């Protein structure tokens, strides 16, 4: 079983970054366990494996790190090849830069409100009701999490997402937001080490 962060950041056994990660052994182990729990659960429970891989391909596609995005697109294409092009079109429709979003208009942070794309799924028929709602929520969490509101959770519930499934979906998007950044940061740190040695 590969360590996904090592794989995506290009960390070789016995390299300086390998030793560096060993100094935070729990973070290393449990970042991988987080991936396992969300993407390869023993019991998928209320969120199917296809839904997990489709959301992961969408979220990593929005972050536009080619290696990470390809890894998750490949997982989806193995499990649900018909969905890959659908998800690619949704990534194209949802691509923007963040974070942005409005703060409450009557509150002290209103002056910092920053408008941007409000993504809606392009092809709800191809995605189906549950994934349409999941993608729209995932986009909100990726780009304008400050705008999240109870009505966003009601939209998921209306599409068939239970409270427990919403927790899993939220963890999936949030965990990937972490993993993508660790990978990007460590890969760059490794490149600068090679450059200075």
């Amino acid at each position, binding site marked *: 079983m590969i360590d996904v962060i090592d794989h995506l950041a290009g960390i070789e056994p016995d390299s*300086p*970054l390998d030793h*560096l*990660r060993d*100094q*935070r*052994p*729990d*973070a290393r*182990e*449990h*970042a991988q*366990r*987080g991936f396992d*729990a*969300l993407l390869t659960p023993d019991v998928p*429970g209320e969120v199917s494996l296809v839904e997990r891989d489709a959301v992961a391909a969408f979220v990593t596609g*929005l*972050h536009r*790190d080619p290696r990470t995005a390809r890894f998750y697109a490949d997982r989806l294409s193995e499990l649900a090849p018909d969905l890959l092009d659908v998800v690619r079109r949704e990534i194209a429709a949802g691509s923007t*830069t*963040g*974070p942005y979003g409005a*703060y409450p208009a009557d*509150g*002290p*942070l209103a002056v*910092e409100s920053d408008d941007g794309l409000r993504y809606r799924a392009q092809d709800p028929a191809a995605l189906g009701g549950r994934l349409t709602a999941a993608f729209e*929520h995932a986009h*909100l969490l*990726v*780009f304008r*999490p*400050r705008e*999240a509101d109870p009505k*966003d*959770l009601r939209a998921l519930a209306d599409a068939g997402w239970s*409270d*427990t499934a*919403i*927790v*899993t979906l*939220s*963890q999936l*998007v*949030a*965990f990937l*937001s*972490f*993993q993508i*950044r*660790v990978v*990007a*940061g*460590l890969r*760059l*740190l490794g*490149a*600068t*080490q090679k450059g200075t040695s």
Partner: protein
Amino acid sequence: MTGFTTDQLDWTPWLAPLTEPELTDAHREALVDAARAASPYFRLLARDPEILHARTKTDKDIFYNTKGGLPRPERELAATATSRRNGCVYCASVHARFAAHYSKRPDDVQRLLDEGVGAPQDGRWQAVIDASVALAATPVEFGAEHIEALRAAGLDDLAISDTIHAAAFFNWANRLMLSLGEPTADR
């Protein structure tokens, strides 16, 4: 909603947490600390215990494993700057208190909250804040210039890795706290 503050806030979930009697041994193991059974946030996340457990163990090693690397106050600074940039008032309040306490620099932390991530700071704090802000961007904007600035500020590679992990982790935590509930005035 309040602005950014170091005041003690409560957090109220928008979905029903598990109740304390509903917690099984597996849920309690996932909470890691028994005291967290009192927290509606952690009892809500306990609906998916495996990822909660992984989240908590990752969090603790990134912030509390102080064998070398980035000093604790600056890990809290990265958490605060990330939360300030993403707009998580609750997360920022908790970690701003930690950053101010451990650094003994409450005025600098308050300026980060009041004026935002662009507020002037000394060189080392500026480097940590700038790196955190670049990592909060989607797509990620963290570049070689950020690593150079961290090195120039005296961070070794483990400290730079700690900065990356602390900032990255708050991109996880902020999204949960922002989207599953909201800050409320302390009772």
